[in-house]
């Protein structure tokens, strides 16, 4: 009995020793991580409560909640929140809906399937600035864009998409970039569906529609949840596409939260206001992430 006790005490001492030296070994990594993430966060918080404008150095000092107050009462801010939501939801609907359909289609046997798959995936590998430029200049340019040329070829007047429907156009461009991602994930999920399950449904008398809704879609639900979560995190911070195509305009018609913060900080030089926007963005992202993680976790449990 006593031998056992001493042995376990020994063990515990050894474990503590290992813990202490382990912590020492971990310290540099933890330190870097802290500096990396906590310092910017704290600084952002700090600036968000300061009067800090690069064009007006005379105005400085503690601002209280003024920065937040100005921001929250600014109609531009509400517009940007709305635009952010429209962009996220619109792109999610298009990419997940289209991605599911395409994944099911690309799962069928047809001639040239390999090439078609590579083509449908490829937009994902084009960087955002480039694809935005491609769409702005090559496709939609009112004078020499491919789309305008096609419209004129059949005798119609081309629409200046980025002027008339800036939000919709940005949404289409972003959806074009993210559809391949959804197809890629959902296609692998579709392919992992057990062939015998489909055949069992066939014998049960399920037609294509019933098979899609009762067999394929439930099988895809996890993958869809994952796609939604990952895409949302990226879509909340869409920036390059807006910067390149509309610069947030006309007016603030296509300004989302990320672009608003940028324009506050680097176009209006209001570091304090931009920081307040940043803090709000962090809060929103965390709320969204909390909801999504919970939803996904529920799916993964089954």
């Amino acid at each position, binding site marked *: 009995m006593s031998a056992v006790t001493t042995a376990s005490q020994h063990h515990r001492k050894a474990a503590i020793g290992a813990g202490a030296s382990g912590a020492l070994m971990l310290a540099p990594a933890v330190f870097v991580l802290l500096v990396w993430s906590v310092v910017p966060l704290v600084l952002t918080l700090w600036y968000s409560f300061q009067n800090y404008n690069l064009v007006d150095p005379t105005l400085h000092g503690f601002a209280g909640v003024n920065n937040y107050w100005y921001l929250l009462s600014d109609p531009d801010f509400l517009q940007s929140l709305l635009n952010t939501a429209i962009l996220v939801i619109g792109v999610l609907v298009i990419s997940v809906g289209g991605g599911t359909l395409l994944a099911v289609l690309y799962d069928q046997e047809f001639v040239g399937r390999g090439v078609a798959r590579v083509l449908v995936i490829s937009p994902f590998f084009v960087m955002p600035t480039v694809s935005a430029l491609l769409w702005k200049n090559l496709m939609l340019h009112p004078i020499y864009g491919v789309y305008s040329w096609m419209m004129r070829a059949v005798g119609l007047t081309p629409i200046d998409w980025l002027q008339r429907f800036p939000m919709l156009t940005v949404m289409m461009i972003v959806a074009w970039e993210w559809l391949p991602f959804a197809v890629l994930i959902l296609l692998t999920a579709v392919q992992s569906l057990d062939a015998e399950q489909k055949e*069992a449904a066939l014998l*049960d008398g399920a037609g294509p529609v019933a098979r899609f809704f009762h067999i394929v879609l439930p099988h895809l639900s996890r993958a869809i949840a994952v796609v939604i979560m990952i895409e949302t995190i990226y879509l909340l911070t869409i920036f390059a596409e807006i910067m390149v195509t509309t610069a947030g305009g006309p007016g603030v018609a296509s300004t989302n939260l990320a672009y608003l913060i940028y324009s506050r900080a680097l176009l209006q030089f209001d570091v304090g206001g931009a920081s307040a926007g940043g803090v709000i963005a962090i809060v929103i992202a965390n709320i969204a992430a909390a909801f999504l993680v919970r939803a996904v976790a529920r799916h993964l449990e089954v």
Partner: protein
Amino acid sequence: MATVELKSIRKTYTSEEIIKGVDLSIESKEFVVFVGPSGCGKSTLLRMIAGLEDISSGDLLIDGRRVNDLAPAERGLAMVFQSYALYPHMNVYQNMEFGLKLAKTPEAERREKIMAVARTLQLENYLKHKPGQLSGGQRQRVAIGRAIVRNPKVFLFDEPLSNLDASLRGQMRVELATLHRRLGATTIYVTHDQIEAMTMADKIVVLQKGIVEQVGSPLELYDCPRNLFVAKFIGSPPMNFLPGTVIAASEEQARVRLASGQEIVVVAGGAQGLIGAAVTLGVRPEHVRLGHAVENRGSGQVELVEYLGSAAHLHVRMQDGALLVIQTEGGVRVHADDAVTFSFPAERCHLFNSEGVALHRRSSGRMAA
């Protein structure tokens, strides 16, 4: 309930013919088992009957009606898959309900049918469980239940027990046989387990490389295999084969000289034309008798003894080097390196010509009975 008829059914996959003309007729209420080595086309044949594979040529008739071009669901059959293929997101009740729902069966009737089936299969306590929460045997039962509720004319099973452990397999085998007797539905069952084939079948179909080698009741195949392949395939441990030459023959008997020089008399008809020809003598391990005898004697040295409890398998090296397996009762006291003598009962031996085709046996006690 329903008859199934296959008329020179063929299946070709990109230039390779997998099923090479199968003719078969299955009576109503019959339990037919397809057996054969891996890759011989059992599953393919079954899937063609189910409608999951196109039939390249030939006719498939169910109840006398040609169904080649009917969709699987319209053929009135149900299939149990090797992997069970349950719908993982539906609970047991919903799994069984799916087909009925699609067939627009009224809610009350659905419930009644499912509860009846659940009672039969002892699934009543698991109706709310998802397949992932069930054991292998329970999943198997759900798969069978899903097939039964739709009250099909024909049941198809593709190796349904091969994922279960040995004891559960034995239990499910008995349950399936009982169920078949009660429902009386025409059943086609694929397996490569010959115990399943022998115990459950009314009729066994032995397939090899897409060809039907023999069709018959389990005892017919055991007593009168038509050729070497069937003789090898049916029976465990498998039949012993010894090369030899016919040296004399009458209407009903043939005298064969083995490589060792021993002469064996075999009950086999029509061997007169084969005098001097090479033949193969076949004898099942359970038919070789240990001990001295006047006729059809052999001797050799024991290399290995396998005790199975109720029986023992002796692996005996004969003088000419051929290996013979003898099955005796488990209590026998024989050890490795012992010398043993044994005899082949003439009426229990099989004779195959050089093409591997069996010679007819005119008098066999069991056949006459």
